[in-house]
């Protein structure tokens, strides 16, 4: 079968954007992909948001040589949950990222060198502001927003910041604010990067990168994306390619080998500074604090909401989805909610596509 080839495109924002921290950022590039066709009325749009380390490449393949499709390929395409026969689907790389959209590894026009830590600290609201420019460039006035994990935070922010544009919001495995536990894991990840002897205060682009720190950050991240049950099912206490331990400090267990592998492949595709900036935006996100209460945050929204959580997700637990649901009820907004049974932990939102597909399809059909 022929591969579905999609191209990552670039959009240059021709004006500067004032960020929440007060800094004005100019020469912003946004990397994005689209799937399906925009109709004449420009009202068949779904804007998707990727999670912490994702990118604009949500579906299909970028080239014939690509081994893996985009990160939500199971959900996007002809007849799938996000049906390209009906909808025009857009996914862009987040501000501060390292996959095409301007971030700390981009060239600072003032110095001609990568920003490094001169890049301003960004928030989820800033990332949404940048996405809005991309949407405006298409002349789109109404849209549906959808995302999982940190992508869900952006979807929430969209529904609040642009109430007249967002007609429906689909949230999977997300939260209106990360728990102290979630912040703690991010903090350890950032510390691993900051303490790496190659970090050099973020100025490492022409030298060896802080790969050890970034790999450790990724290993910690992966622990939080799984759960006890999924780790037990995947690895148990099995040894890696051996029957008995080596009695040294190398890799003995399969779970160690898995984490090490995840760390290793991550440093080839991700920038340590981007990890710092994006996890910080993640930690700062707190709708209740920003608007006085979660209910107040939703006051002006005109969106219908669909919320899905996963039973074994302890990073973005069901209780946090229920918080959003309850606030929406108090704000008298239309909301549907389902907790999907899954042993896959937080990763479930990328894996359990069958039930999600059923639910999302019905929800979208009902909007028509």
């Amino acid at each position: 079968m022929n591969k579905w080839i999609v191209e990552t495109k670039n959009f240059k924002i021709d004006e500067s954007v004032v960020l929440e921290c007060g800094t004005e950022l100019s020469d912003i590039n946004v990397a994005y992909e689209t799937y399906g066709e925009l109709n004449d009325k420009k009202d068949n749009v779904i804007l998707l948001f990727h999670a912490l380390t994702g990118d604009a490449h949500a579906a299909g393949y970028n080239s014939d040589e690509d081994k893996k499709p985009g990160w939500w390929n199971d959900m996007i395409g002809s007849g799938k949950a996000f049906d390209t026969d009906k909808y025009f689907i857009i996914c862009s790389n987040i501000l501060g990222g390292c996959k095409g959209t301007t971030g700390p590894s981009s060239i600072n026009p003032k110095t001609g060198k990568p920003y490094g830590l001169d890049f301003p600290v960004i928030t989820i609201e800033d990332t949404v502001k940048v996405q809005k420019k991309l949407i405006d460039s298409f002349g789109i006035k109404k849209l549906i927003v959808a995302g999982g994990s940190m992508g869900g935070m952006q979807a929430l922010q969209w529904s609040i910041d642009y109430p007249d544009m967002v007609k429906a919001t689909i949230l999977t495995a997300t939260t209106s604010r990360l728990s102290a536990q979630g912040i703690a894991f991010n903090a350890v990840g950032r510390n691993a990067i900051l303490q790496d002897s190659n970090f050099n205060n973020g100025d490492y682009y022409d030298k060896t990168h802080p790969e050890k720190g970034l790999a450790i950050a990724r290993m910690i991240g992966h622990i939080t994306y799984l759960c006890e049950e999924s780790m037990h099912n995947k690895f148990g206490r099995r040894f890696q390619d051996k029957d008995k331990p080596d009695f040294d400090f190398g890799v003995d267990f399969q779970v160690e080998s898995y984490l090490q592998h995840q760390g290793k492949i991550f440093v080839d595709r991700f920038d340590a500074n981007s990890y710092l900036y994006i996890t910080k935006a993640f930690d700062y996100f707190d709708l209740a604090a920003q608007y006085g209460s979660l209910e107040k945050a939703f006051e002006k929204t005109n969106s219908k909401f669909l919320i899905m959580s996963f039973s074994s997700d302890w990073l973005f637990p069901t209780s946090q989805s229920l918080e959003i649901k309850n606030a929406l009820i108090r704000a008298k907004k239309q909301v549907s909610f389902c907790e999907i049974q899954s042993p896959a932990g937080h990763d479930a939102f990328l894996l359990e596509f069958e039930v999600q597909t059923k639910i999302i399809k019905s929800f979208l059909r009902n909007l028509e």
Partner: protein
Amino acid sequence: MKYNVKKTKGLKPNYDIVSKMVKENSSVLDLGCGEGELLKELVDNKNVKGLGIEINQDYVVKALEKGLQIIQDNIDEGLKDFENGQWDYVILNQTLQSTVKPDFVVEEMLRIGKKVILSFPNFAYWKVRFDLFFNGKMPKSDFLPFEWYNTPNIHLLTINDFFEFCKKRQIKIEKAIYCTRGKIKNSIFKATANLLSEEAIFLITR
């Protein structure tokens, strides 16, 4: 979400009867809505603005597939965020007997709904009594198909129990409908309803 509230199996749907009690274009909250058949009927035929609450994931998915607005939650705890009198009707169809705190649930329904429609299988129905009396075992029927050890019906009640409950709590019974085999039998029963009806449907207010 610790437990599962299942709909009573093998039940003859009383949807027509319940549906007739609901005014057109009203707002309806259906608690323990199962796969959403009743709610779908109300949305399609009475143009109601409807929301269903159901605990079982499979039912939630099926109800969502009908295009309904559904929240997966526990009705013993999930009503607190609704405002006083927010709904024209709050319906609890054949589910009261499987709630953990039925008294609290009824109070909450009366708080958030202008009118409450409530139905339950009558445990004083003569066949149920007959079963217990002659067989000496927990009764089983179309309405009560479960074994004593796996029944979701943990708070069984009779029509007389419900009258007493309403009297004690100053709850007004606006309408009482007694059914057997899905057919209304009010004209025949009256005084003997507690013995002769299999199911009761009440419209109550405060």
